[in-house]
């Protein structure tokens, strides 16, 4: 039963090998001379003395959260789409309920003005 996962294993090994080789090669072959002025933050040539960590407005956080919710929702569509034929009606109704709930949530957010930026 496990042999169906062998190609995945080979793929992972190749990826790890390649990435590992690239990283170690560039670490070994590339000269590295870190000194203070090189590690200072780059801001178009000026050494910034203004703190970069400023309190950002809440809108960014709100938009990020909304994105995550609806992005994760999209992830659930993939397995459903693959098995659409086999699941026949049961799958459709099940997904319909799932989408319906999130649609109501989206309508609520839209009405409350969570989507517009200003």
């Amino acid at each position, binding site marked *: 039963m496990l042999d169906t996962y062998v190609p995945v294993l080979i793929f992972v090994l190749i990826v790890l090998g390649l990435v590992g080789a690239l990283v170690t090669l560039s670490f*070994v*072959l*590339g*000269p*590295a*001379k870190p*000194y203070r*002025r*090189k590690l*200072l933050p*780059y801001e178009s*040539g*000026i*050494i910034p003395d203004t703190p970069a960590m400023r309190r950002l407005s809440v809108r960014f956080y709100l938009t990020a959260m909304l994105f995550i919710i609806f992005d994760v929702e999209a992830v659930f569509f993939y397995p459903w789409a693959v098995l659409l034929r086999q699941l026949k009606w049961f799958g459709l109704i099940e997904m319909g309920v799932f989408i319906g709930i999130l649609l109501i949530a989206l309508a609520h957010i839209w009405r409350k003005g969570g989507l517009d930026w200003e």
Partner: protein
Amino acid sequence: MGIEALAESMGQNFLTTTLGKVVGWGRGNSVWPAQFGLACCAIEMIATATAGVDIGRFGSEAFRASPRQSDLMIVSGRVSQKMAPILRTIYDQMPEPKWVISMGACASTGGIFNNYALLQGVDKIVPVDVYIPGCPPRPEDLLNALMILQERIKAQGILPRQ
């Protein structure tokens, strides 16, 4: 059974080289310049990057905006006293190995402006590898300088770690 003998027996489809040559070849043919256009030479540098005189044939068409991703700084234009510390900062923030091409008379020696406002030659603040005469030099001159630099990079091979 030296390497050459092995190559003989394998019917000549082997290429034997040293790691240094491979590293030099890789680095030489993918020198990414930092976008450091100052004055008139910058316009000729852009002209070099366009289709007419294509710098892409030498692997250098990716003008990186940030010094972190570039290994060649083409100082194209006159460096004023106010710009000198900034040029030095940008040079410092470029990762090793890095090279500098001083494009044009103003960058190399202050050019026709021998006065209080200009840095008389960029080699006063950064080590320069290739100088290009001309005011502004033709795009072909910039390519010629790039080829000279590529020969020099290929000859360097593996650089010491520290």
